């Protein structure tokens, strides 16, 4: 097993008074795929949103406990108020269940995070966008229509575009919330393959409802089924 990338210690999560997660203790290994499974409503998406603090956008949400992530060499507390949540989200990519391309061109979609981060130098943008799209195996399909609306792509292509968009900032951690569940098997397989290829560069955390998928690609499994505390 590779060294730990994220350490979660006695973590509780509440929506208002409703406790969703209680006393979670886990380590997530670097450069591996950690899969989160469990029944619907168990709090898998919520758990995922802890790593880029996206839960903060929900009014009434509250977290207790510690999550430490190791960027460069030392661990730091993700929930530290002194830590910039904006920078955190630029370092932790996320892919959602439904492909969510923004209403702009294919190129601009992938270039968008760079624009947000204030990276405007044309050459750099061009290179990084191309690299990201190529990494997702989307290049042959879109290279002639980069200026077309992203919504004209198929669902599978859109999802890979979203992966490319998440990867363009070269994140060290990539969160995926049921990335293949809205796709046909072939597109799903491509995403899976892509995830495996990303392992050397990234720590991947994926929510999945498909046991066979977990079987195929996960290096570690966290089970949220009530009563079970299994790790593989």
């Amino acid at each position: 097993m590779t060294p730990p990338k994220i350490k979660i210690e006695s973590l509780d999560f509440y929506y208002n008074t409703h406790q969703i997660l209680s006393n979670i203790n886990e380590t997530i290994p670097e450069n591996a795929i950690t899969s989160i499974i469990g029944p619907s409503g168990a709090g898998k998406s919520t758990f995922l949103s802890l790593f880029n603090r996206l839960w903060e956008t929900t009014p009434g949400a509250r977290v207790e406990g510690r999550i430490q992530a190791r960027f460069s060499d030392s661990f730091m507390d993700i929930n530290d108020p002194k830590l910039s949540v904006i920078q955190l989200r630029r370092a932790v990519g996320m892919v959602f269940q439904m492909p969510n391309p923004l209403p702009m061109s294919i190129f601009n979609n992938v270039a968008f995070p760079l624009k947000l981060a204030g990276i405007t130098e044309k050459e750099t943008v061009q290179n990084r966008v191309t690299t990201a799209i190529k990494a997702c195996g989307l290049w042959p399909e879109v290279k002639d229509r980069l200026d077309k609306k992203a919504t004209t792509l198929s669902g599978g292509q859109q999802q890979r575009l979203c992966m490319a968009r998440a990867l363009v900032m070269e994140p060290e951690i990539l969160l995926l919330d049921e990335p293949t569940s809205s796709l046909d098997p072939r597109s799903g397989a491509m995403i899976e393959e892509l995830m495996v290829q990303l392992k050397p560069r990234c720590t991947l955390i994926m929510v999945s409802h498909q046991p066979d998928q977990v079987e195929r690609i996960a290096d570690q499994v966290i089970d949220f089924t009530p009563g079970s505390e299994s790790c593989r």
Partner: protein
Amino acid sequence: MNRSFFQQKRDRNETAARALLFMSALVCCLLVVLILGFMVVTGLPLFGQNQAMDLLTGAWSPHNGGYGIAPMIFGTLWISFLSVVISFPMSLGCAAYICVLGPHGKATVMKRCVQMMTGIPTIIYGFVGVFLLVPLIRNTAGTGSGMCILSASLVLAVLIAPTMILFFIQSFDRVPRSWLDAVDALGGSRVQKLVYVVLPACVKGIVTGTVLSFGRALGDTLVALMIAGNAIQKPDSLLDSARTLTAHIALVSAADFESMEFKSIFLCGAVLYLITALVILGARLIERRGTHE
């Protein structure tokens, strides 16, 4: 990515934007106060002692130096009440037909039409009212000029109906889909769906919509000005002519600055402002009450 990458940076843009946005909102709100303020500041010095009270409650008899706006207050209330009374059943029926009773295919088209109706300029209602409805009323009633409370209320009723319908539709549309499906599944008719599910669920929305439409009728100037006849008297019957507060302002604002008549329009403005504030407050309270239960 090292530690400094995650350092909080003070975002100048963010702070500046927040300040700018807050200032804009504040300015907009201050306008509301400003509107009242200017009327008071300009109007107040015009009054002598106790004159304001006399103006508010007294009768209008310029020959005896009486410039009370009571007749105008009555005129306003009469006309707006009557128009709401006429408009309410009509609007409720239309909204019910569009949302529940009528065929689905027609609903979108009819809703579009109603939306377009809200765009018909008030002046056009007034203009057609003067040349179409007023002679009609005059001939039917056999007396008077036809410019009366009834004519004005009728036109006003048509004028406020689209707004009222849209309020109702808005509240009908909020009824959860599943409730309606449940009635359908139980074999209920459309009318039953309306009476047993939709209307009870929408009482609050219907009341709020009616109150707000009443506010709209109160504030309308042109229809009353052109059709109600503008006689300053306490109206006794629907066929009497009357003057509303709004029409009074429009008519008198051209008068001599120093006359008592002129001073009364600021009072009219303030009274209108106050009534509107009460109406809005009332509507908000009704809405609140429902959400707490």
